[in-house]
């Protein structure tokens, strides 16, 4: 049972700490949402901008398809399916943890210390920091593209296949979330390196929007085994679309998404712990 008294924390164990973290996350997110709504017009504009910026990526794809019928052997609805699944996953991770890349700045100006003074896990506080509702723009845009692709795809939709789509989104969110977290942990050491993680998050998303057949084998291997972003949508999507996987992995690999997501989250948690411990022993 969750203890309600002030004596939780270390004594309460992992479960209590998790509950405490979620609660703090919710409280801080609420504060940021209210702050955002204090400037309503600005918020609407920024949400639109977020929507439009991601929409431009898809406009580029449509412009490409105005000149061709297939890219790397994939039709427009198939590419749109990849685009939508990757975009929703990144969008959700971005919404939930996207401002963690500000950690380096907080370390530099010393404001991270104020988070260490509150009775809540630092991770929850950093994750909720500057929670930006405008990022719903990307999610909305990706959902629209995904929805459109589902109406055009030539797939025999069984219940199992239909369930795979939301499962992909959940695992994809967890995988991208792990990358955001690991990137933030890296900033405990390199405070100016915020842009590096963009390569893996936004860069990874840019890659996953296109069919794996477009890229060199080594690159595909890299995002399968090294930074396993391929499990966000490529492998399960290829299965759904009835396409062979360019690396010729065994069939069960297409269903490894949840396992990979769990492993990556565990890895990111370890990186975060190390980073925070290093910060608390060096102070910068």
């Amino acid at each position, binding site marked *: 049972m969750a203890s309600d008294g*002030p004596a939780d924390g270390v*004594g309460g164990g992992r479960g209590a700490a998790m509950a405490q973290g979620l609660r703090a996350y919710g409280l801080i997110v609420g504060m940021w949402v209210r702050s955002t709504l204090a400037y309503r017009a600005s918020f609407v504009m920024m949400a639109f901008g977020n929507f439009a910026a991601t929409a431009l990526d898809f406009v580029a794809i449509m412009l490409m398809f105005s000149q061709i019928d297939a890219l790397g052997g994939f039709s427009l609805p198939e590419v749109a399916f990849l685009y939508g699944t990757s975009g929703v996953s990144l969008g959700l991770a971005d919404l939930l943890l996207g401002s963690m890349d500000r950690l380096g700045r907080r370390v530099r100006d010393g404001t991270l210390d104020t988070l260490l003074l509150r009775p809540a896990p630092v991770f929850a506080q950093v994750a909720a920091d500057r929670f930006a509702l405008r990022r719903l723009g990307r999610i909305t845009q990706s959902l629209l593209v995904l929805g459109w692709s589902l109406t055009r795809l030539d797939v025999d939709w069984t219940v199992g296949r239909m369930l795979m789509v939301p499962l992909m989104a959940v695992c994809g969110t967890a995988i991208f979330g792990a990358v955001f977290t690991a990137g933030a942990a890296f900033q405990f050491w390199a405070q100016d390196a915020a842009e590096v993680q963009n390569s893996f998050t936004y860069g990874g998303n840019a890659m996953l929007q296109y069919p794996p057949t477009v890229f060199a084998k080594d690159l595909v291997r890299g995002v399968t085994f090294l930074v396993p972003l391929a499990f966000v949508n490529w492998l399960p999507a290829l299965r759904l679309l009835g396409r062979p996987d360019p690396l010729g992995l065994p069939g069960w690999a297409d269903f490894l998404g949840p396992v990979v997501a769990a492993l990556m989250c565990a890895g990111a948690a370890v990186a975060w712990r190390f980073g925070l411990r290093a910060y608390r*022993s060096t102070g910068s």
Partner: protein
Amino acid sequence: MSGAAAAEQLIEVDGVEKVFSVRRKAGRLRRVRHEVRAVDGITFQVPRGEMVGYIGPNGAGKSTTIKMLTGILVPSGGRLRVAGIDPARERTRLARRIGVVFGQRTTLWWDLPLKDSYELVRRMYRVPDAVYRANLDRCIELLDLGPLLSVPVRQLSLGQRMRGDIAAALLHDPEVLYLDEPTIGLDVISKAKVRAFLREVNAERGTTVLLTTHDLTDIEQLCRRVMVIDHGHLVYDGGLDGLRAAGDGERTLVVDLERELPPIEGVPGARTVKVEGPRQWLAFPAAQSAAPLVAAVAERYPLVDLSVREPDIEDVIATLYAGGRVPEGRAAADPA
């Protein structure tokens, strides 16, 4: 060692040190690691309910000490307990029992009304409603926060914001309050308000206060006990009066004579430092009594009036820093 005494000590610091490893450029590419001992084995105790000033020049180890006491930084050595809790190991448990105000870093929410920040504290610290209500009402009354509650924090003046920050740090009934430069940048009236409030909190609620400041008036008006840190060492720990004596401080005897006379001579232990018309200034060691001096002067000179001036605390501390010397026999003073 003594169990009974230890129970009363809210803050216990025993041989605590903090060593940073710094990489410094040496030549074009080479970098050399070297150690910086920011806090180099300090020991002190603070009993419950005391208000202590903690001062020292920039980079002396003040904020490193505070960061270790609050659990932000993990000490490299020594033993540290606050309310019986090891801050480094049980940071979140400790967080509920301490309040912290960083003078230059607000924890209030910039775009939201002041009361929203307080509401967050209530929920995050799980403050019971009755306690919250009572504490908030008290802060509102004593710090004049009433008209500010619905104003977005970004529209508050520096002084108003500081008052708001101090209230935020007290809503959860902390046993210890750490204040880092609470009066920095404030106007005279705000300073007075903040000081009066702190005195009240300390006296009425028995909240233990540890105060770092550059403004020595804060110390003079609030603290009976002062700790001075320099180069990571505690160079003084004792009463404010003792500090004056310790720092090679000199007191000044100001005498008004009947008429303009040449500088006073031949008074043992004193020397004339200034003459201005019929008024003369004589400096003498702070530890020495003024009575024989007054007698010696009155015996030989036509005395009209006199007064004794205590050494300026800033000068005292300046000489302490300059000398870097450790006054002896000044372990935790007990003013009782």
